[in-house]
């Protein structure tokens, strides 16, 4: 049997954890039921993707965005998901902004350092590089070296 998209499963451990936390203590779940829920979740994602894609195409966009997915939820009659998803989205955006700012700050600091160092070194490097090339005996002899 050829591989179907439904075969793309989500990790069992995570699925099990979500199920257990949703259910009261002491409740168990059979392997078959758990695996069926896992497949259902995959089908859900595929269906939601397809719905969301329709909204994207309506908006003449080629990239699915968050609002497409939210619209898909309403279309699929999962309106009750919309509010918690919006909250999660806000939290996610905040986290991404924080990460971005942190990495941008690091980059700025790095650039500042290298910039000042480079200005001093660049003049020296021009002279040194030529000497190094001759010494290293690079196979690429097409490079012009000014003697």
């Amino acid at each position, binding site marked *: 049997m050829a591989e179907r*998209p*439904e075969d*793309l*499963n*989500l*990790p069992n451990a*995570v*699925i099990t954890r*979500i*199920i257990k*936390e*949703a*259910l009261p203590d*002491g*409740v*168990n*779940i*059979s392997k078959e*039921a758990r695996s*069926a*829920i896992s*497949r*259902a*979740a*995959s*089908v*859900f*994602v*595929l*269906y*939601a*993707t*397809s719905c*969301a*894609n329709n909204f994207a195409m309506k908006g003449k966009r*080629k*990239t*699915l*965005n*968050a609002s*497409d*997915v*939210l619209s898909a*939820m309403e279309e*699929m*009659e*999962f309106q009750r*998901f919309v509010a*918690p*998803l919006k909250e*999660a*989205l806000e*939290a*996610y*955006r905040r*986290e*991404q902004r*924080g*990460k971005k700012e*942190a990495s941008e700050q690091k980059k700025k600091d790095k650039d500042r350092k290298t910039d000042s160092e480079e200005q001093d070194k660049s003049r020296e490097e021009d002279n040194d590089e030529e000497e190094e090339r001759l010494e290293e005996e690079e196979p690429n002899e097409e490079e012009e070296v000014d003697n």
Partner: protein
Amino acid sequence: MAAAAAGSGTPREEEGSSGEAAAPQPQAPTSAPGARLSRLPLARVKALVKADPDVTLAGQEAIFILARAAELFVETIAKDAYCCAQQGKRKTLQRRDLDNAIEAVDEFAFLEGTLD
């Protein structure tokens, strides 16, 4: 990590950083272990999204929301299936409970015929 209680073998101390966890961590500290934004790995969700031949691209936010929605879906269907098991006075969720839930709940209609 500073070795508080000597468990196994010789306690090691990390050199460089002082005693407590003063090492700079790139990740923002999360308040509670379950407070992560999404538990499902985004890469797997992305793979599912890409499986759709009509989809060209999907933004990061879209993938994230899909992952979160899938989690909510799992919670929802598990709870609905549990209601059926409760009626049978069982404490273990069986496959048939799931089937019953799918038949009973309109929103799960899209699952019919897909789980076999």
